């Protein structure tokens, strides 16, 4: 699956860039995120409690930052393990472009899901992934709009 989107962020590009690498900010943006820790310069470890309708599963996610081209673009590589529910693997290509006081953020997310969740619930996989990605970037934009960064 592949999907893209964009958000207009109420901040200058460098601030946006920095915030995107701040585990506290990332935690606030990721729905159901219980913890987000930096494990190395370019790596975060997260625990997420995802609720998708009847499914409630706790996932461990390892997030790598790759293809760094500050402050314009980078790639997040996400490896998710959810025990009995299955696993996920995804990449998000993120680009920033300055619009003066604001910054346009565009993203393209690709990924796949495996394991029981995908064997039983394949009809929901695309919608659920789309929702998680869109919500992440929408939350990010909202933080700035509400001056919470």
């Amino acid at each position, binding site marked *: 699956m592949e999907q893209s989107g964009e958000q207009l962020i109420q901040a200058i590009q460098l601030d946006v860039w920095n915030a995107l690498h701040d585990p506290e900010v990332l935690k606030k943006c990721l729905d159901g995120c219980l913890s987000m820790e930096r494990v190395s310069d370019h790596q975060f470890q997260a625990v997420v409690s995802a609720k998708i309708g009847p499914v409630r599963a706790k996932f461990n996610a390892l997030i790598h930052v790759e293809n760094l081209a500050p402050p314009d673009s980078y790639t997040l590589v996400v490896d998710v393990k959810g025990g009995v529910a299955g696993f996920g693997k995804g990449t998000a290509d993120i680009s920033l472009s300055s619009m003066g006081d604001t910054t346009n953020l565009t993203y393209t997310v690709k990924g*796949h*899901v495996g394991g029981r969740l995908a*064997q039983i619930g394949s009809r929901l996989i695309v919608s659920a992934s789309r929702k998680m990605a869109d919500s992440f970037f929408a939350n990010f934009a909202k933080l700035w709009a509400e001056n919470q960064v």
Partner: protein
Amino acid sequence: MTTETGIGASVKRKEDARFITGKGRYTDDINLVNQTYLVFARSPYAHAKINGIDLEPAKATPGVVAVFTGKDLAADEIGDLPCGWMVKSKDGSDMISPSHPPIAIDKVNYVGEPYALVIADTPDAARNGAEAIEANFEVLEAVLSTADATSGPQIHENAPNNRSYDWELGDKDATDTAFDNAAHITKLDIVNNRLIPNAIETRAALGDFDSSTGNYTLYTTSQNPHVERLILAAFVNVAPEARLRVISPDVGGGFGSKIFVYAEETAVIWAAGKLGRPVKWRAERTESFLGDAHGRDHVTHAELAIDDDGKFTGLRVSTKANMGAYLSTFASSVPTYLYGTLLAGQYTTPNIYVEVQAVFTNTCSVDAYRGAGRPEATFVVERLVETAARELNMDPAELRRKNFIPPDAFPYETPVALTYDTGNYGISLDKALDLADVAGFESRRSDSESRGKKRGLGYSCYIEACGLAPSQVAISLGAGVGLFESAEIRVDVTGSVTAITGSHSHGQGHETTFAQLISDRFGIPFESVDVVHGDTGRSDYGLGTYGSRSIAVGGSALMSAADKIIAKGKKIAAHMLNSNEDNVDFADGRFTAADTNESLAFGEVAFSAYVPGNFPLEELEPGLSEKAFYDPANFTYPAGAHICEVEIDPDTGVTEIAQFVAVDDFGNVINPMIVEGQVHGGLAQGIGQALLEHGIYDADSGNLITGSYLDYAMPRADHLPDFTVDTTVTPCTHNPLGVKGCGEAGAIGSTAAVMNAVTDALGVIDMPMPATPETVWKVARGA
């Protein structure tokens, strides 16, 4: 003897008495004292190295009795799961059969492959334990596409280009010449979609070990318990053959998927021995989707050469057959000897050449599924013929008729290694045309058009080869087992009869059909015959039930045993009637001395056999019990004509089967009711393949997307029409009953008929299968 219960009568089934009252006894209904439960840890990845498995959390889970990995089985010298049919490539080399440890050791090769097993006191504890297993997988790039498998990353070290074999049959040069001289060539690219068998009873196994005797008992959902025992003993090495009893109690459908020897029952019986406690496993439905051998999955390019007169002059077929990750028990024979040999169909096509590459992918193994190779062959031939008729602007029935093997040409030797013993294809087609009121089709089509619908008609004239045989031929072609069948008839002291067959019934009604045979032959009441099957402890040997072989091979074996009983009965009767055995006739249940016209009932002779008061014991042994092994002289060749009429709503893409007619020639029919039922079931599966069913792996993750009934579209009652079925009869010439076999015909003929009808309705040549609403909608609007 013609009676209400004899040959040819639609006797109500004996076995139904228990099934309709809930007293059937299926594997999961059996429980043993001190029983444990086994749950497998299965790979979520299509292709990955196992860099380590941490079993400690599982072992520490409450209720868990033991946790094992593939290494534990290997340490006990448990062998690979073998493939029992050796196929050779064009260059004479043996097929490549990769090592297949029952439980993966170093590497997993498909989603769902077991890599560890947890045994616990309760099913939930075993599940908890399996969830607690932490494996360290190194994910590798996977191969999923049949068409591109040979260029994907290599799965098995000894299988370059992911190829098991590259097989051929037929005369390539002669066929090429026929194409060079053809007036018309019809070409098709065909994908035969992957199916998942879905017997409603999932597979299950219960293993028991008696340490006082060293005997193992395995209750399992097998279509062929003796073959299961042979393979588990001789190849997998779980127990000595004599110490292993395999019982297949009532089995809730098989359709091929329960022929094979799998990891699960291997692990169950091994673990029972290891722990000294009974071990039970029952598949969850998703496990069945992931691990029961799948069916079909061919990618084919096919061409038909036709001369100016509309006669077929050549057929050229090139197929890639997906084997999945490993070669399952009989997988190699399906796209070769059960496929290539059937490409002549019902036609006189003089030149045929087929080549098949069997490829490995990171998917569940593919093996025989109802029809096994023959539906794929029929699909190729009948889609080509129908397409040719449309291209040539000929009536598809007429084109077929022009090319049928004429009734006086039998026995007919095809260019692809078979000799058809008998048949009359024209009469089946005539009857089908009549029943389907093809003459009235055009007016029905205009009626549909007036309602904005599209109507189409499709034919399929199939042939199959059933009752795999003879052993010598099969073995020379690579089979690892003989293909005879065994039978034993024990006449009881009171004249009732126990008939023991090596065939196995999992829905086919052997307890009834075989009782009809015996009752008819011996002239005794139907109720006096008890049919026993499915237990290696009660019968000598047997090959089980698949490939529509039971009546042709198993029934014939019973007839041979019955002949021996009658021969001995004559000796006994001669003694009792003071006559000579050559003078004793047996008919209508009585032994009659021709010279005196005195006679004895079957039961009286049986009684004397066991109460031999004045027997000449030096000439005649007491008792009346005989065994027979019947090895057929040839395959049997059921054939028939299927006609499907569909109505399509182009706005939604929904295809409705307006009518389905099947006229089949099964030779003589023992129980017409049961035969009709077999046809109905086969049709449902064939129609299911055409319109609904599709096993789909995600191209990125290698995950089985259709892993439950939420996404795998099983045919339901309201997807299907009432069927019109009828038969014609040309008796088989080489077995004592003149029977051919009926279990697979419906699934073999129907798929092509449906797709021919759909393409007719839409006015197109190519049409992906299954013809789901979206597919039809796209094709209908030319997208």
